[in-house]
C-alpha cells in the first residue's frame, strides 16, 4: 500500500518569489547554531547539551497527540537518558526538519537540480516541516533514533579522548559515559568536546529487544504544564508593550471588502488602530475584548460570495456530477459494467456528507512582532516553514530574518496547516512596527472562516452474486481539496487550480484491499465551492463512510453477517486480525437484548488496518451511542497509553461529527458560528471506548487519525441494525434523535 502523501505532484519550483538579498551558496547547516546560547552545544540538529543537561528538539506540532513525548523518547532511548531527564523543545523553523513522508525526498534528477538552483539563488524552499496525516512517527522512527545514536557516538568519542581509552570499551547510562573501571563523565561535561566530533551518518541503532523507553508508556512531557495552566499556547504569549487584536473578515469566503467605515470603532475604549485588509479588518486595542467589541462596530461592505449561495445548491452540484458518472477512474479492476449486467441483485444508493469545521478549542491566533529588520512570530502551527515563508512574503524580509516560535496548540486537526491566522498577526504587526501584536480570531470568525472538511456525495452500485459482493462501482464528488488549498497557500506546488479531483477525493474508497473482482472508483469533476482543507483523516473521513456503508448494504442484500462478509473479502492478515479482535471485544456473535444493536466498519487507513464496532440502544426518546470497540494495527507500538488516548480521541471525533456535525451555507454565509449551533459531543453523550492496539511488526503506523474514518459508518450500520432505517445523509441527528 502506498503511504499517503500530502501534496500531489512533484516539488516544483513555486516560481518568481524572490525575497530580499541573494545569498549564494547558502549551506544547509545545523539550524540550531544561530540560536545556541553561551555554553550550549548542538550535537546534530536534534540534541543540545549544556552544563545543565540535555535538550531534545522535537520539530513537530504538539497539538495534543503527544508527539513531543514520543519523538523525545526515540532520541532518549539511543542516548540512554530517561524522558524526565531531557528538556523537549520544538526548535526553529527549518527544512532540515522536513517531513519526508509528507514530502518524499526528490528522486527525479531534474527536480533535484531545480531545487538546488533555487536554494543557491536564495529563493525560499518549499516549506516541508509539516505535521499532519499521522505521518510524524513514520518519518521519525529511524531519523530520531539515528539522531540520538549519533549524538551518543559524539559523546562517547569525546569521553574516549578524555579517558585515553578505546571508544568501544565505553558504555553509556543515566546521561553519562562509563569506563569499565567505574569512572564516569556526565554528558554535560562532554558537550563542548563532543560538538567537535563528526557525527556518523549511519550509527547502529539499539535492537528492539534492548529498548527500555520505547514500547512502554511514558509520562508525557507536556502533562504537568497542561494540568497546572502553565503550558504556553500562542494565545497565552505575553510580551512587554504588546497589544491585542481581533480579526473580522468577509463572511462570503474568498470575497473582498469593498469599503469600510471605522469612525465609531475608533472612538471606542482601548482601541488603538483599525487596519483595513483586502477582505476584512483588524482592530488593535489594549485588550482582546475591546478589540472584539470594536470590530463589530466597523461598518463593512462586502463583495458577494464566489460560490452558490446555499448548501442545497452545493450538494445538488455534487449529486449531479456523480449521477453523470464521468471522470477519471482511480481504480478499475475487472469488468464492472459486465458484472453489473450479469447480476440479478443490484444495490444502488447515494450518500451525502456535510462540510465540517475543525473547531479547535483554542481559537485561531498568533502573535507577531516586526522590528529592526526582523519578524518574530509565535504561533501554534502545523508548518513553521510555511509560517516563515508567509512572513517573508508579506514583509519583504529575507527568510532568515523571520523567526517562528511554534508553541503548544489547543488542537490542530489540520486547521493549523493553513497560514491565514498567522497572516492576520503579521498584517497587524506591519501596521504597527515595533509593537508585538497578538491577533485572535473570535470564535465566530474561526467557525465561519474555516477550510472545511469537504462536503461530498458518494454513489455506489453493487452487484451480488452467489451470496457475496461481486462488483462495486463507486463515484465520488467533492470540492477539490488541493486546488482549494493551493489557491490560499502560495507556497504549495501550483500547477492545478482547475479543481481537478486529487488523491484526497478518493482515499478510503480506491485503496481498500477487499477482494471484489470488479471494483471501480470514479472521481467526478471537482467543484469550486467553499474553501476546503485537511480535516482529521482527510478524504477517509467521508470516503470510508461511503465505502463501509456500501459494503454493509451489500452484505445485507446478500443476506450475510456484515462482519463475516467483510472478513471473507479480506486476505490481508492484519485486516483479518483487527476484525476478529473487535468481534471478540464486542461479543459480536452474542445476541443483544431488545433495543440494542451493533454495527461494524473496517478500513485500511493510511495503510494501517482498523476495525470498529459501535453499539447503540434504541428507545422512544431516540438513539444512544453506548459503546465503541476499535482495533488498530500500529505495526510497532511505541507508547501504548498515548496510542490508546489518540485512538479514543479520533473515534470520538468521528462520532461527534457523525451525530451532529454540519456546516451549512445560506445567502453565501456560513450559518454556524459557535458551540451553540455547531455542537461538540459532551461527556454525558460520550460512549465508552475500548481500544485494542495490534502490532503486526515491520512497518510502523501513526495513530492520530486512524480511529476517525470507521466511526461514522459503524454508527450508521448500528442504527440500521437497530431500526431498519438506513440513513444516507450525515449527520445522523438530522434524521433521528441522538441522545
Amino acid at each position, binding site marked *: 500500500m502506498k503511504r499517503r502523501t500530502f501534496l500531489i505532484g512533484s516539488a516544483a519550483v513555486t516560481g518568481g518569489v524572490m525575497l530580499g538579498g541573494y545569498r549564494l551558496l547558502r549551506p544547509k547547516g545545523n539550524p540550531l547554531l544561530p540560536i545556541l546560547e553561551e555554553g550550549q552545544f548542538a550535537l546534530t540538529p536534534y540534541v543540545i547539551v549544556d552544563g545543565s543537561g540535555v535538550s531534545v528538539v522535537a520539530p513537530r506540532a504538539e497539538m495534543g497527540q503527544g508527539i513531543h513525548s514520543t519523538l523525545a523518547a526515540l532520541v532518549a532511548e539511543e542516548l540512554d537518558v530517561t524522558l524526565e531527564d531531557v528538556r523537549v523543545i520544538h526548535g526553529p523553523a527549518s527544512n532540515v526538519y522536513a517531513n519526508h513522508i509528507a514530502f518524499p525526498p526528490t528522486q527525479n534528477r531534474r527536480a533535484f537540480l531545480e531545487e538546488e538552483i533555487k536554494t543557491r539563488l536564495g529563493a525560499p524552499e518549499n516549506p516541508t516541516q509539516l505535521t499532519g496525516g499521522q505521518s510524524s512517527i513514520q518519518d521519525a522512527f529511524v531519523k530520531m533514533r539515528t539522531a540520538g545514536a549519533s549524538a551518543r557516538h559524539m559523546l562517547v568519542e569525546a569521553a574516549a579522548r578524555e579517558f585515553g581509552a578505546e571508544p568501544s570499551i565505553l558504555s553509556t547510562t543515566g546521561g553519562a559515559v562509563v569506563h569499565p573501571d567505574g569512572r564516569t563523565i556526565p554528558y554535560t561535561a562532554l558537550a563542548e568536546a563532543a560538538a567537535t566530533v563528526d557525527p556518523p551518518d549511519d550509527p547502529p541503532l539499539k535492537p528492539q529487544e534492548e529498548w527500555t523507553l520505547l514500547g512502554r508508556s511514558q509520562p508525557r512531557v507536556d*502533562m504537568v504544564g497542561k494540568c497546572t495552566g502553565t503550558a504556553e499556547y500562542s494565545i497565552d504569549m505575553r510580551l512587554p508593550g504588546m497589544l491585542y487584536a481581533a480579526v473580522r473578515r468577509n463572511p462570503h469566503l474568498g470575497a473582498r471588502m469593498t469599503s469600510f467605515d471605522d469612525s465609531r470603532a475608533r472612538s471606542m475604549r482601548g482601541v488603538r488602530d483599525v487596519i483595513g485588509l483586502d477582505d476584512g479588518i483588524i482592530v488593535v486595542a489594549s485588550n482582546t475584548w475591546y478589540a472584539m467589541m470594536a470590530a463589530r462596530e466597523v461598518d463593512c461592505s462586502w463583495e458577494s460570495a464566489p460560490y452558490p449561495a446555499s448548501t442545497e445548491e452545493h450538494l445538488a452540484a455534487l449529486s449531479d456530477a456523480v449521477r453523470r458518472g464521468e471522470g477519471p477512474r482511480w481504480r478499475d479492476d475487472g469488468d464492472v459494467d459486465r458484472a453489473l449486467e450479469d447480476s440479478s441483485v443490484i444495490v444502488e444508493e447515494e450518500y451525502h456528507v456535510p462540510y465540517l469545521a475543525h473547531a479547535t478549542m483554542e481559537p485561531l491566533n498568533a502573535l507577531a512582532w516586526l522590528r529592526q529588520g526582523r519578524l518574530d512570530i509565535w504561533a501554534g502551527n502545523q508548518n513553521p516553514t510555511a509560517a516563515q515563508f508567509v512572513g517573508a512574503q508579506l514583509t519583504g524580509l529575507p527568510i532568515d530574518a523571520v523567526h517562528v516560535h511554534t508553541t503548544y496548540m489547543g488542537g490542530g486537526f489540520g486547521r493549523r496547516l493553513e497560514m491565514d491566522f498567522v497572516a492576520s498577526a503579521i498584517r497587524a504587526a506591519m501596521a504597527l512596527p515595533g509593537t508585538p501584536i497578538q491577533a485572535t480570531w473570535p470564535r465566530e470568525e474561526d467557525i465561519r472562516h474555516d477550510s472545511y472538511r469537504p462536503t461530498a456525495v458518494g454513489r455506489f452500485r453493487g452487484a451480488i452474486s452467489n451470496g457475496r459482493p461481486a462488483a462495486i462501482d463507486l463515484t465520488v464528488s467533492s470540492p477539490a481539496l488541493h486546488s482549494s488549498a493551493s489557491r490560499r497557500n502560495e507556497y504549495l506546488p501550483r500547477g492545478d487550480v482547475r479543481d481537478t479531483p486529487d488523491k484526497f477525493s478518493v482515499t478510503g474508497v480506491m485503496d481498500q484491499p477487499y477482494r471484489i473482482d470488479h471494483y471501480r472508483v470514479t472521481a467526478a469533476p471537482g467543484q469550486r465551492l467553499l474553501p476546503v482543507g485537511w480535516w482529521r483523516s482527510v478524504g477517509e473521513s467521508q470516503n470510508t463512510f461511503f465505502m463501509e456503508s456500501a459494503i454493509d448494504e451489500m452484505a445485507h442484500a446478500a443476506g450475510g453477517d456484515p462482519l463475516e462478509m467483510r472478513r471473507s473479502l479480506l486476505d490481508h492478515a492484519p485486516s483479518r486480525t483487527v476484525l476478529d479482535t473487535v468481534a471478540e471485544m464486542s461479543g459480536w456473535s452474542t445476541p443483544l437484548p431488545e433495543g440494542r444493536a451493533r454495527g461494524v466498519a473496517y478500513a485500511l487507513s493510511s495503510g494501517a488496518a482498523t476495525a470498529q464496532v459501535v453499539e447503540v440502544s434504541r428507545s422512544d426518546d431516540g438513539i444512544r451511542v453506548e459503546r465503541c470497540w476499535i482495533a488498530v494495527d500500529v505495526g510497532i507500538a511505541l507508547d501504548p497509553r498515548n496510542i490508546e488516548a489518540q485512538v479514543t480521541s479520533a473515534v470520538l471525533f468521528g462520532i461527534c461529527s457523525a451525530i451532529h456535525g454540519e456546516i451549512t451555507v445560506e445567502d453565501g454565509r456560513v450559518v454556524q458560528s459557535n458551540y451553540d449551533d455547531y455542537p461538540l*459531543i459532551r461527556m454525558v453523550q460520550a460512549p465508552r471506548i475500548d481500544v485494542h492496539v495490534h502490532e503486526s511488526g515491520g512497518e510502523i503506523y501513526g495513530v492520530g487519525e486512524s480511529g476517525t474514518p470507521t466511526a461514522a459508518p459503524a454508527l450508521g450500520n448500528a442504527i440500521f441494525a437497530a431500526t431498519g432505517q438506513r440513513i444516507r445523509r450525515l449527520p445522523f441527528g438530522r434524521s433521528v434523535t441522538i441522545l
Partner: protein
Amino acid sequence: MSQRPDASFALRINGASFEVTADGRMPLLWVLRDELGLVGTKYGCGIGQCGACTVLIDDTPVRSCALPVSQAEGEIVTIEGIGGPDDPHPVQAAWIEHQVAQCGYCQSGQIMQACALLARREDPTDQDIDQAMSGNLCRCGAYGRIRAAIKTAGARLTDAEPSP
C-alpha cells in the same frame, strides 16, 4: 463617544487583591488574561458554552467569559491559585497520574469544574460527574480519563480526611 468614564474594580484573586480599571462590562476572563496576565484561564467560545474559562468564585464554578467584571464579587480562584508544577492540587495530581490532557486547552476549566464538584461531593457517581462536567467541552475527547481522574482525586480527598 461610546466610552464611559473609567471605572475601578477591586478583585480578590487567588488570595491577593487587585485593582483594575476597565469598562465594567468587560468579562472577568479578559481582565484575568489581558489585564492581569493570568493566562491559565482560557478563551474558548465567549458565550458560556465550552467551559474553558471556568474559575471558582466563593467555591462556585463560574464561566468567566460571561461574567462582567463589575459583578465579579467574592473570592476568585483560578487554575494558578490551586497548585503549580511543584505543588499540584490533588485534582491536578490525579489529572497527571491519569495522563488526562491531550491538547490540554480545556483542562484548566475541566479541573476547576472538577474541584467544585469534589468540594460538594467527594465520591461522585457517574451521573454526578456527567451532570457536573457536561458543560465543559473537550475536543480531544479525553472524557474517559477525566472521569477516572475525578474518581481518583475524590478517593484521595476522602482518605486524607481524619476519621470522625
